[in-house]
């Protein structure tokens, strides 16, 4: 009764969850394309694409990918042998348990006419598959909690998955162990199946089962005499052997049964078997119902992502389908951390603790973005910073075990987020080179807008003395700022400046403009002067500061040994932290 209700309930939740999740593949997007597609358009584009692929030569590529990527998991093999062993154990152990054991009514009993769960090889295989899962879980546990690679994070989702898996597996093992030792089960079976009822025969069979099958009897204790056992074996052959192999084949459960033996009788009487069975099936059903909403959903999404990626390519496949593929990718991500372990910039997380720097942690934010959930300006700028802190070095993409084209994903989402117009100071750093090289793929207006926004943002915040006719009064001197500059070894060299303008004359950026002051605001020597006067805003909102190439011509030319370029670096760092503080404050207020 409970079994049926919970089974159907979990199946309904699973089915609804599945429909919901699959619908998000077509409904969600990052607004990364200029032309929006409706969910219906994307659905039909996908079905069309699938049909076209299945009836073309590409089906061979799909089969190859199915064999190598999905069944043999070669991508994980390339990454690490230990992880491959772990994942193969989990994948095959669990899949085979599901097919042979959980779905025995559907598969196994139809395939094998004389199937019985208590008969070898099934009895043995069930334990063998469980062993695979245990080995897999053991390695997973070792990697996450003992080996503990830096920045290898374990989130709540990972923990739930491991706990649920553990409950299912352990309850299953102990259920089988409890059944092996259960006298009540034994008696019930004898009542149901034995074709004899003489006292002596019953005793003989029981003796054999106590000796060889691990039953813990309240009536009999070893040793038994030989004749009794011989008689017992005869009865066993006639009545039980067709369905029962020796329980030692179930090597894990039998071990557990041996451990339980001293307390088996009282536990059996108090209904341990029923209790464990209930826990076991309930855990399985909870797992089933929770699956579409958990990271375990990758069981379905990852193979799909691998297969789709083997035949799809940006520029060749329909844009609508590329969006859908990226949405599937979000579900396919298993949060395994391969990308983060290779990330060129992961190390800076220790200095800039924004989890969105780490590729594996970006995915969570991407899911929020895709769902269209409203985010505050502060939340958006944090995500934006994380997305921009990427050198586009193409190290994450080749190692993703589920074949997500992360490089493209980051680029598309970054552009989609930039479109919202929040100024990103990182646009003014060499991180922009990649964007610049790929600019022909972007809408011109969007490309230039994102380039202009940071200066707009800086001008809004660093606005002191914005009227050039206003005199600079001593009260306007920012003492904190000067103290900071003077405390820095390189930055403090500004104080040697006697304004000879050599730096400005040497600057190739200044030389690029007919009217440098108009184009750049202050020129290098004026920036140094503004620093000496203690009015950082004048320097901060000068385009010159942000257009410094870092070529060190000024620094090497300075007759006073002012480390001009290093002073500019110091100033930019101060400007960035000022802007970030401002953002944080507005974020807290809103």
């Amino acid at each position, binding site marked *: 009764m409970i079994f049926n209700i919970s089974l159907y309930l979990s199946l309904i939740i699973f089915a609804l969850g599945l429909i919901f999740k699959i619908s998000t593949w077509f409904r969600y997007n990052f607004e990364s394309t200029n032309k929006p597609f409706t969910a219906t358009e994307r659905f039909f584009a996908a079905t069309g694409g699938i049909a076209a692929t299945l009836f073309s030569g590409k089906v061979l590529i799909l089969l190859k990918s199915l064999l190598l990527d999905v069944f043999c998991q070669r991508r994980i093999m390339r990454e690490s042998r230990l992880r491959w062993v772990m994942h193969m154990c989990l994948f095959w152990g669990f899949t085979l348990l599901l097919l042979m054991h959980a779905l025995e009514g559907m598969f196994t009993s139809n395939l094998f006419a004389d199937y019985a769960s208590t008969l070898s090889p099934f009895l043995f295989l069930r334990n063998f598959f469980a062993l695979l899962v245990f080995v897999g879980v053991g390695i997973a546990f070792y990697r996450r909690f003992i080996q503990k690679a830096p920045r290898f994070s374990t989130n709540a989702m990972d923990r739930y998955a491991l706990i649920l898996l553990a409950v299912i597996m352990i309850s299953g093992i102990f259920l089988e162990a409890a059944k092996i030792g259960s006298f009540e089960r034994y008696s019930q079976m004898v009542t149901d199946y034995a074709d004899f009822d003489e006292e002596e025969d019953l005793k003989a069979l029981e003796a054999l089962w106590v000796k060889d099958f691990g039953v813990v009897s309240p009536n009999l204790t070893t040793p038994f005499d030989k004749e009794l056992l011989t008689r017992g074996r005869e009865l066993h052959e006639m009545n039980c052997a067709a369905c029962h192999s020796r329980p030692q084949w179930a090597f894990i459960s039998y071990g557990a049964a041996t451990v339980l033996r001293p307390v088996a009788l009282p536990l059996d009487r108090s209904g341990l078997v029923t209790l464990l069975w209930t826990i076991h099936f309930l855990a399985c059903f909870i797992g089933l119902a929770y699956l579409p909403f958990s990271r375990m959903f990758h069981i379905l999404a990852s193979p799909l992502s691998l297969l789709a990626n083997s035949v799809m390519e940006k520029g060749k496949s329909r844009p609508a389908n590329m969006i859908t593929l990226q949405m599937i990718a979000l579900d396919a991500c298993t949060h395994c951390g391969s990308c983060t372990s290779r990330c060129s910039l992961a190390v800076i997380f220790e*200095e800039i603790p924004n989890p969105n720097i780490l590729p594996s942690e970006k995915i969570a934010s991407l899911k929020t973005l895709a769902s269209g959930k409203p985010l505050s300006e502060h939340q958006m700028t944090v995500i934006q910073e994380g997305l921009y802190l990427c050198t586009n070095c193409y190290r994450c993409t080749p190692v993703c075990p589920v074949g997500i084209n992360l490089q493209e994903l980051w680029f598309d989402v970054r552009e989609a987020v930039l479109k919202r117009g929040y100024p990103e100071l990182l646009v003014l*750093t060499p991180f922009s080179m990649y964007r*610049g090289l790929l600019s022909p793929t972007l809408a011109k207006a969007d490309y230039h807008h994102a380039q202009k926004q940071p200066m707009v943002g800086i001008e809004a915040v660093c606005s002191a003395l914005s009227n050039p006719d206003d005199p600079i009064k001593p009260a306007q001197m920012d003492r904190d700022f000067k103290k900071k500059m003077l405390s820095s*070894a390189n930055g403090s060299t500004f104080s040697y400046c006697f304004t000879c303008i050599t730096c400005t004359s040497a600057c190739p950026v200044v030389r690029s403009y007919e009217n440098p002051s108009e184009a750049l605001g202050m020129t290098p020597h004026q920036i140094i002067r503004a620093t000496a006067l203690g009015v950082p805003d004048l320097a901060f909102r000068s385009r010159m500061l942000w257009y410094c190439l*870092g070529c*060190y*011509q000024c620094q090497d030319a300075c007759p006073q040994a002012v480390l001009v370029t290093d002073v500019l670096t*110091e100033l930019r760092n101060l400007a*960035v932290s000022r802007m970030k503080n401002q953002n944080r404050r507005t974020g807290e207020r809103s």
Partner: protein
Amino acid sequence: MKLALQRCCTTPIFLKQYETSTDAILGRLGVQLTDKALNCCGYPLKNYNYKAHVLASARNLSIAEKRKVNIMTFCNCCYGTLKEVNQRLRADRTLSAEINGKLEKEALKYEGGVEIRHLMEVFYNDLGPECIRKHIVKKFKGLKVAIHYGCHILRPRDLVQFSGPGTAAVFDDLVAMTGADLVPWHLQPECCGAPMWGIDDDLSAALTRKKIENARASGADYFCLACSYCHVQFDRVQKRLLDEGSITEPMPTILFTQLLGLSMGIDPNILGIWKNQIDISPILDCIN
């Protein structure tokens, strides 16, 4: 000799030929490279978060120190960054302690024992000009080359100390060994414009165009350089400017490793001669 190679983050997508040509040459010269564990040098972060930029380089330095190897770079920006951070960490105990505290999580520590080598220095100082000369089997004839040094092997001079102030005579000597004729040009030590690409493309293009025009007017047929950022700028960005029509005549750019590789008789396919955006294959006619 064994070195840890600091691969530049721009090369995997835009400049695979720099990796393959470097690997091929160093393989011939018996230099072993390890690189897997190194991350970005931190160059793009310098003006955003100085400490993060130090941390990025420091991690690479500490890994190299642990393996008892020096770091080689083939990108001037990586070179300048690593050199600066290396000097900073050696001089500033407080900073070094703070950074080591962060590296500790990965059981890493940097004590200042690693030297940074530019590819040119490996050729000239570590292997020696004789070793390079021995491996040169073909020489270029009538090839006029404008060498573009790249800022960070020149400046700041106190830090870099590459060769003489304002020049990089080592570079000149190495190119001359291949038989190429060096063309003097007065914008040689200037910036290529790459740092501004993506930030203000007009400014970046203006800087690049000026250099191209100057080199051409000085009679050069090719740029030769040894920096990934400069090469992306002079090859990819120049290609864009040509397509847009803001430059009319191309000035093809050959990587130093491609030039040296050809004169060492290495297969042009391995050197990625056809991977450059602006065709450099006519250079094959200048070699016998």
